[in-house]
């Protein structure tokens, strides 16, 4: 299995690659996400530098790169948790840019669901209630004060069953293992029935078998329901197997945007693979 090392060992600075825009990636499908000139500065450090790409409906895109390359920063911008220093992020009919950063504090419309690197579950709530939290946007607050309707609970149980956690539905999330919490996060994201799923390392805490199951579930939703998946992955083999397209970051810059199958050959032709991953 090829996997990405997170080492910051001194590597020669990679020569810039010509960024290949997503060719044959569902050109006829509508754009669900458009990022233009995205820059994020953290003090003097430029975490993300002039990144532009579009994601079309039904694509399965893997964002890859070494640790510190800016993957999570980009994900936070796409999720609306971080305002970009410059550039714009468009989701279907919404826009968020550096000029309207206050929008990040507003209630986002439920077009996209987010899976976080560290799950971000409420440890005191049961696994079932954590999944149900994905349905909060459907109801005004006064309707959820006393809990959720039975039909919602049934659907949440079905999702927990899909990720193999039906028997642990009543346990507090804090008592589940890391892998189980990650699967609860998957269920919480998918129950939102989103157009676009933003997943930051969705299988980082899972063993190989469970990781394949979860990625298989995402691909099934992608192929059968047209769910657009944009996820951070560290495993090249997994990216090649599940993603239709890979975006590769290096020091905050987008250095590759193309089919997952060509990634190794393309990059190896240009520079040493290990310097990027």
């Amino acid at each position, binding site marked *: 299995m090829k996997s990405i090392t997170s080492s910051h060992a001194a590597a020669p600075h990679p020569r810039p690659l010509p960024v290949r825009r997503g060719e044959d990636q569902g050109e006829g499908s509508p754009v669900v996400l458009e990022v233009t000139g995205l820059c994020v500065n953290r003090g003097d450090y430029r975490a993300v530098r002039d990144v532009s790409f579009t994601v079309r409906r039904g694509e399965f895109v893997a964002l890859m790169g070494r640790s510190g390359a800016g993957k999570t920063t980009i994900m936070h911008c796409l999720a609306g*948790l971080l305002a970009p220093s410059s550039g714009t992020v468009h989701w279907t009919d919404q826009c968020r840019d550096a000029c309207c950063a206050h929008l990040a504090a507003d*209630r986002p419309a439920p077009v996209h669901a987010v899976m976080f690197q560290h799950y971000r579950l409420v440890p*005191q709530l049961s696994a079932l209630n954590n999944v149900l*939290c994905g349905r*909060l946007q459907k109801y005004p607050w006064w309707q959820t*004060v006393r809990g959720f309707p039975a039909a919602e609970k049934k659907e949440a149980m079905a999702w927990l069953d899909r990720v193999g956690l039906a028997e642990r539905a009543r346990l507090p999330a*804090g008592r589940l293992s890391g892998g189980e919490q990650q699967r609860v996060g998957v269920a919480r994201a998918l129950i*939102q029935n989103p157009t676009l799923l933003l997943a930051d390392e969705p299988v980082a805490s899972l063993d190989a078998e469970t990781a394949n199951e979860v990625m298989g579930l995402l691909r099934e939703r992608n192929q059968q329901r047209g769910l657009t998946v944009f996820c951070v992955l560290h495993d090249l083999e997994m990216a090649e197997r599940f993603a239709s397209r890979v975006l590769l970051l290096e020091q905050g810059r987008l250095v590759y945007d193309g089919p997952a199958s060509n990634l190794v050959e393309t990059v190896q032709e240009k520079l040493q693979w290990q310097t990027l991953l």
Partner: protein
Amino acid sequence: MADVALTLPGSAPKAPASRRWWYAGLALGAAVLYVWAWRGMEFSFERLAKSFPHAWDFLSRMVPPDWTVTGTALTALAETIQMAVLGTTFGALLSLPLAVMAARNLSPRWLTWIGRGLLNLIRTVPSVVWGLFFVAAVGLGPFAGVLALSLYTVGYLGKFYFETFESMDNAAAEALRTAGASKPQIFQYAILPQSLPLLANYTIFILEYSIRAATILGVVGAGGVGYYFQVYLRNFDYQKAATLLVWLLVVVVAMDGLSGWVRRRLVEPT
């Protein structure tokens, strides 16, 4: 080979000069504060030495306790506990919305100023003054005591609660926000569940404290064991007062043990 700088025990690098001046200033300020406090209290070893016979005389009059007032003591203590339980409960219920108002991560800045201002105002007034106020307003008895305790506990519980809300990990709240949850929903499903063990912990602590505070309130006529305590002392019935103290001690120790046990259970990791 590169040079390696070793720091041996006892050779720790010195703090910068500005830091040393700051520590010296702090020490000087503390010294001035203690001298000022010492002079203000007119402390005298001579007076302290002369006081021992009087203190011994006072204590010896309390022994042995007069157990004939046990019934009265237990009835009054029950009233004190009732006052503390109701006062703390009403106080906790009032504290919750005030704490939400005062928490910076839950309310706009202008509202936090109002919330914190109200809590500071309530906390500034001592419990005895609240007791006198409500005795004047609603008359003698435990009802005045419950009202006084309710407001008194709001001052402290409100502060404990909003500091708890502000110290919560924001990650889960952000996750719900990205899922489209509204602010009240984020409070109910992310902030409150995470805060509950600490909120309960503080509330039980205040309940335990309220039993002692309720005793003092009785002295100003707000019901409970404090009322009988001041009556016995005024009539020089020191042995009866001693009986009240013994039973109060039993209740306080029992509450301390019980609340400690409950608090440990609450803060245990799930």
